């Protein structure tokens, strides 16, 4: 993969050639194909999808439904009816917690891991408060591993929902979703997989993993903000009640009641983000043109470089695994004596974009006994020079904060 050619596909790097963007776990940059797809929709295809009978409305509907088919193919869903467009992974998780959550009752259990993002914690806390179901956590080790043994101990015959991230947004660790989903099914639970950090970087196939639900955000995978996906197995989605109600999700309405539209529309109340869906389609086509073999190879190479460069910075401590490949391009670290926000400020002065704070994972931070960290996260379009600049700036931080080495 030629990084110069790749960067030419991203207008922001042409606008800002010296940009060192290492906050990809927060959101990715967008290739011109995605930006053009959104622009094309509004310039040439814009009408309210699923509504009008005129040609333009028909075209807008086709844009939306073709995008749905592309998404279904991308994650290996059996049918496009299993693809619900949402705003983001957070909304998808709320949908499942609210709608599937209506089946839970007092005494049931919900199982999540300590390494979840707040978006995969709070909806379950709320469901627990509503239903009386107990929210339980499976712990991870200091290097970020959830063992099969720990998972078996946390699981019980009362577990009705298991929800877990595939890749940690803090540690970069990848969880063995296929095994955990199988164990969850044996216990009679459904399995929700948070793919926000995995779908943008590795091939994810819902039938291969045998997960019941998969959620992810478009904006972390080259697509626009405001478009996300919920995949759900058809038989589950069919028996679940709607989440949001209103227009375009009904079949028939009288003064006092309504019947619901077919899947997937039952879960897509109101006008959907068709331009966002068009952008997501363009993003997926960009991934497919590059191929995950090339993307994975490139990101593994950058991960090795980053791990070695960060390990060579004095006083720096990487959280999680000691193996570069276990990080999946996500590196959280601390620097002795310097608060993460001060590190971020100094790196910003050097033009390096990284994240500092608790990364919406306060439960994990408490578990690891670290109030906050700095996080650098990679994507295939990053350059060797980005990592070199990161390491060089980090080496100067303590001096610039007044420490005499």
């Amino acid at each position, binding site marked *: 993969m030629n990084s110069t050619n790749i960067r030419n596909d991203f207008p922001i790097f042409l606008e800002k050639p010296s940009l060192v963007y290492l906050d990809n776990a927060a959101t990715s940059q967008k290739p011109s194909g995605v930006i053009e797809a959104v622009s094309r929709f509004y310039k040439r295809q814009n009408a309210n999808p699923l509504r009008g009978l005129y040609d333009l409305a028909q075209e807008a509907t086709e844009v939306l439904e073709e995008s749905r088919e592309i998404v279904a193919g991308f994650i290996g869903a059996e049918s496009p009816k299993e693809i619900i467009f949402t705003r983001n992974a957070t909304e998808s998780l709320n949908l499942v917690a609210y709608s599937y959550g209506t089946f839970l009752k007092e005494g049931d259990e919900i199982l999540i891991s300590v390494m979840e993002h707040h978006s995969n914690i709070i909806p379950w806390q709320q469901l627990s408060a509503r239903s009386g179901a107990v929210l339980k956590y499976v712990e991870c080790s200091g290097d970020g591993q959830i063992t099969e043994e720990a998972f078996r101990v946390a699981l019980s015959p009362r577990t009705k929902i298991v929800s877990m991230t595939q890749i940690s947004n803090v540690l970069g660790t990848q969880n063995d979703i296929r095994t955990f989903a199988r164990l969850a099914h044996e216990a009679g639970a459904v399995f929700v997989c948070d793919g926000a950090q995995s779908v943008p970087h590795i091939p994810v196939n819902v039938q291969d993993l045998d997960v019941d639900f998969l959620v992810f955000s478009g904006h972390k995978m080259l697509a626009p903000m405001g478009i996300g996906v919920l995949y759900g197995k058809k038989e589950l989605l069919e028996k679940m009640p709607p989440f949001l109600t209103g227009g375009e999700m009904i079949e028939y309405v009288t003064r006092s009641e309504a019947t619901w539209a077919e899947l997937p529309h039952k879960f897509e109340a109101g006008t959907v983000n068709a331009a966002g869906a068009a952008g997501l389609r363009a993003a997926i086509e960009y991934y497919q043109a590059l191929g995950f073999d090339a993307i994975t190879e490139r990101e593994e190479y950058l991960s090795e470089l980053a791990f070695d460069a960060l390990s060579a910075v004095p006083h720096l401590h990487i959280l999680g695994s000691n193996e570069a490949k276990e990080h999946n391009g996500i590196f959280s670290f601390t620097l002795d004596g310097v608060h993460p*926000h001060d590190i971020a400020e100094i790196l910003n002065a050097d033009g390096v974009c990284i994240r500092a704070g608790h990364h919406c994972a306060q439960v994990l931070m408490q578990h690891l006994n670290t109030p906050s960290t700095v996080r650098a996260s990679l994507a295939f379009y990053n350059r060797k020079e980005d990592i070199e600049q990161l390491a060089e700036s980090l080496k100067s931080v303590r001096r610039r904060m*007044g420490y005499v080495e």
Partner: protein
Amino acid sequence: MSNSFYREIINEHNLHPIHKRILPRAGLSRRGVNPSCGDDITLQLTIEDGVIKEGAYSGNGCAISQASADMMLDLVIGKTPEEARHLSDIFFRMIKGKVTDEELEELEEAGSLQDVSHMPARVKCAVLSWHTLENMLE
């Protein structure tokens, strides 16, 4: 490499604070927290005969939050609560970019945080100790 905001004065107060300790018998004690970034300080004051006689802070956070607390205590110890409130009013206006040169002088070293007015993400760090003080004196 461009110049960063961290000047000697802030680094010095962060690395070698004068007032970072615990007062065993403080009359007033109040905690201030920035939940989004984790700055967490506890401010303690003893007021005797209408004057802030002793002051200290403890806790942890970024250099700006810690240095700001230390510089604030430098200023307000020995002052009356009214004078302290007058200074906090100037400090808040400095952060909003609405302060005169004469007023800035009253802030002494705390005036070195003036550049925070151009750094929206760090405002809450700089004002944490001052807000805590204001709440305390209410």
